[in-house]
């Protein structure tokens, strides 16, 4: 604990914080807003607002946006992922096409997650794996590694499975056959089912 406190209060940490938030607030903010789903107008809004914040207040303001992004952005991502799941389910029901298994649909959702979602999922799964490892008795590290590995494999399968599915749907769409995914608009599945829709603001 004392070592942790020393590390936090050391002059190196202070210097790092000053450099990161003081000299590169724009860069930090651009990273922070990645917590919002792609196309969310808040991304462009926060970056534009940075230019009207007085220079002296920028580091603190940027640090404050981390809180906004974590609570608002990640919540949006979670709800978007949920929406994607229920949306796809609804689309399948509408078209009367139910041949895809529940596993394939669940994998489709995992495959449709963004990079940040994936990082959050991997970290969370690692933590859970650590706890399971401790509980089973093989140690937190082994548990975390095994569970994370399994999760990564599942995600890779999901991503490639989703990509292959999209490619197949697009090929079918080009040939003029009706889209199996149930899209009413005739758009490829990935666009038609995107709950975020096109961004209202300038996209980043």
């Amino acid at each position: 604990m004392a070592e942790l406190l020393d590390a936090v209060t050391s002059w190196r940490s202070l210097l790092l914080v000053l450099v990161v938030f003081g000299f590169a607030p724009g860069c930090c903010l651009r990273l922070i807003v990645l917590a919002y789903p792609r196309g969310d107008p808040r991304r462009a809004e926060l970056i534009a607002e940075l230019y009207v914040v007085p220079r002296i207040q920028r580091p603190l303001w940027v640090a404050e946006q981390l809180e906004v992004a974590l609570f608002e952005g990640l919540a949006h991502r979670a709800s978007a992922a949920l929406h994607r799941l229920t949306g796809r389910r609804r689309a399948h029901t509408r078209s009367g096409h139910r041949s895809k298994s529940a596993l394939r649909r669940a994998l489709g959702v995992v495959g449709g997650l963004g990079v940040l979602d994936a990082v959050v999922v991997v970290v969370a799964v690692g933590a859970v794996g650590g706890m399971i490892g401790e509980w089973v008795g093989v140690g937190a590290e082994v548990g975390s590694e095994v569970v994370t590995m399994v999760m990564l494999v599942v995600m890779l399968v999901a991503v490639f499975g989703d990509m292959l599915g999209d490619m197949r749907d697009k090929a079918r769409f080009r040939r003029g056959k009706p889209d199996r995914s149930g899209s009413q608009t005739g758009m490829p599945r990935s666009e038609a089912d995107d709950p975020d829709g096109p961004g209202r603001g300038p996209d980043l």
Partner: protein
Amino acid sequence: MRKTRALVQVAMALLDDPTSRHWGYELSQRSGVRSGVLYPMLTRMLDEGWVTDGWEDPTTLREKRPPRRYYELTDEGRLALGGVLQQARHEARFADLRWRFA
């Protein structure tokens, strides 16, 4: 929307100039509500239809910066937020804010 101190402060800032455009940072400064609370509140107001949003026209910008997002009160928002202020006027927990009421 739950009537909180932050909502009352934002309502006061918005109704201070009910017909003009409001910007996130400016609104945060005038209301005294930090952005961690303000932006989620603005999102809820957009969902409720109390405010509308838009983007600055990039061709009218003099400085070299991206266009900003603005918020404008709708008629529904003016009524709703006016009602919030009316109620807040009689509540003891907002007593120290009364001096700022129009």
